[in-house]
């Protein structure tokens, strides 16, 4: 069985389309989406509907859960209103059927790969969609998250930073981000996104395992255009992130 692992689409439909087109060139049996599908991007409803058409297994991300209910941001409390306005706007874009679909996302899934090999899929960590597993995490800390689970492969998103780590017979994969592939850190302000969409595939048979980290080029002008045409709040800040990413790469 060959799985595609996609994560952190964040309402970027241009990038999601690029990934879906690339997936068509491969014999993928099932897409596993690791959450954060709609929030903080210009085309949330398009992303939900494309995902529904894919028939993917879906994991609930922290921002998906915020879309379903209360989000932690406030416009009135004086802090940056950006996230609050973007969350409210995102909720307004979605139809009831979109909300129902997001409501069906699972906190965690255990997927049978081959024989007794299993993949555990989650957004942040098996304990919480808010947990952060950065590529530099200490082995002992990562093991704390994974050791209770009888699986050989683990996959999570949330950080938007690709990573691969092996310890005690367990392989952890973060496929990176489809819609907001941060070049350095999600803590950067402003964000810097690379001009590509990231995903991974996983194929396990008795004789060999393969996992591939794929980077699909995107047309940054199309991405910027999708935001410019949308009434997505603070789209200029989002657009700036894509421009800064291109500048960072060209200046490298």
């Amino acid at each position, binding site marked *: 069985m060959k799985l595609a692992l996609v994560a952190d689409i964040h309402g970027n439909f241009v990038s999601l389309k690029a990934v879906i087109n*690339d997936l068509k060139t491969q014999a993928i049996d099932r897409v596993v989406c690791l959450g954060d599908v709609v929030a903080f991007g210009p085309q949330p409803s398009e992303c939900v509907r494309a995902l529904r058409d894919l028939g993917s297994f879906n994991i609930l991300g922290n921002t998906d859960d915020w879309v379903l209910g209360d989000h932690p941001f406030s416009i009135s409390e004086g802090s940056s209103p950006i996230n609050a306005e973007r969350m409210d706007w995102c909720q307004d874009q979605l139809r009831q059927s979109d909300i129902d679909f997001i409501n069906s996302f699972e906190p965690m899934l255990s997927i049978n790969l081959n024989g007794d090999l299993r993949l555990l899929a989650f957004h942040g960590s098996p304990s919480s969609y808010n947990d952060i597993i950065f*590529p*530099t*995490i*200490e*082995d002992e800390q990562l*093991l704390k998250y994974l050791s209770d689970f009888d699986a050989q492969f683990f996959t999570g998103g949330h950080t938007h*930073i*690709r*990573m*691969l*780590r*092996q*310890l*005690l*017979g367990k392989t952890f994969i973060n496929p990176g981000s489809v819609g907001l592939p941060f*070049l*350095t850190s999600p803590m950067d302000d402003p964000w810097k996104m*690379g001009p*590509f969409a990231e995903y991974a595939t996983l194929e396990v048979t*008795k*004789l*060999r*395992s*393969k*996992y*591939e*980290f*794929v*980077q*699909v*080029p995107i047309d940054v002008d199309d991405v910027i255009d999708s935001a410019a045409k949308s009434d997505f709040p603070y789209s200029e800040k989002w657009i700036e992130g894509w421009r800064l990413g291109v500048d*960072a*790469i060209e200046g*490298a």
Partner: protein
Amino acid sequence: MSLSFALIADIHGNAVALDAVATDIKLENVDRVLCLGDAVAFGPEPRKSLEIMRNLQCNVVVGNTDEWVISPPSVKSKRGKSRAKAQQLIWCHEQLSTDDIEYLQDFKPTQTIDIGSNRTLVGFHGSPKSSNDVILSTTSVGEFKEMISDLHADVFACGHTHLSMLRRHRSSLVVNPGSVGLPVDRLAREDSKQLLLPYAEYAIIHSDEETFSIEFRQVMLDIEAILESGEKSDFPHKKRWMDGWRLLLDSIKAS
């Protein structure tokens, strides 16, 4: 144009494992194989390993243990583990022909490869500065920068740690394909047990104008064949090596 490159590292004279990987690579029609060093030392079949590498027409970077095999240390005034290690290196050197040694001497400290579509790969064993440097997932950005200094590449590929790894450094990717011949588990090793993994590790980079990907592969090993190659070899102090593979075989049989 679509190009693909196989990355292999840390073979350590395990020809059974290298043969399994070479078979897997041949199915893929890769354009080039890059070996990231540590080809022959501390395993039972150094000559056969080099023969397979030559058949693969590898570009090779030099590993710390390759340098030791070229000029093995003297056993004089060495005791215990370091004496055993020196004896293994001397044995390894003795197994190799003059041609083999010249082949090792030809290994480069770094290899820069044009991987197509305006992308460049720089390969090295430890770091560009030293085959003894260690780059781990947990190596700080500052330390990494120091080791890379002013080199630019789309992919930095290293070996040495025997741990497969992918991380980003700005817009570059940093890859370690893991080990072909001694795939180890870092945590288990720190418990003073040499816990090996049941598969040989390597990676393939696919590069075309559209997509760019790094694929990690785990090829299941015939552990009984590995043990047999060890039995047949007269490499000194092989007990530790044999025990590692036996422990793995036992743990697989038990589960």
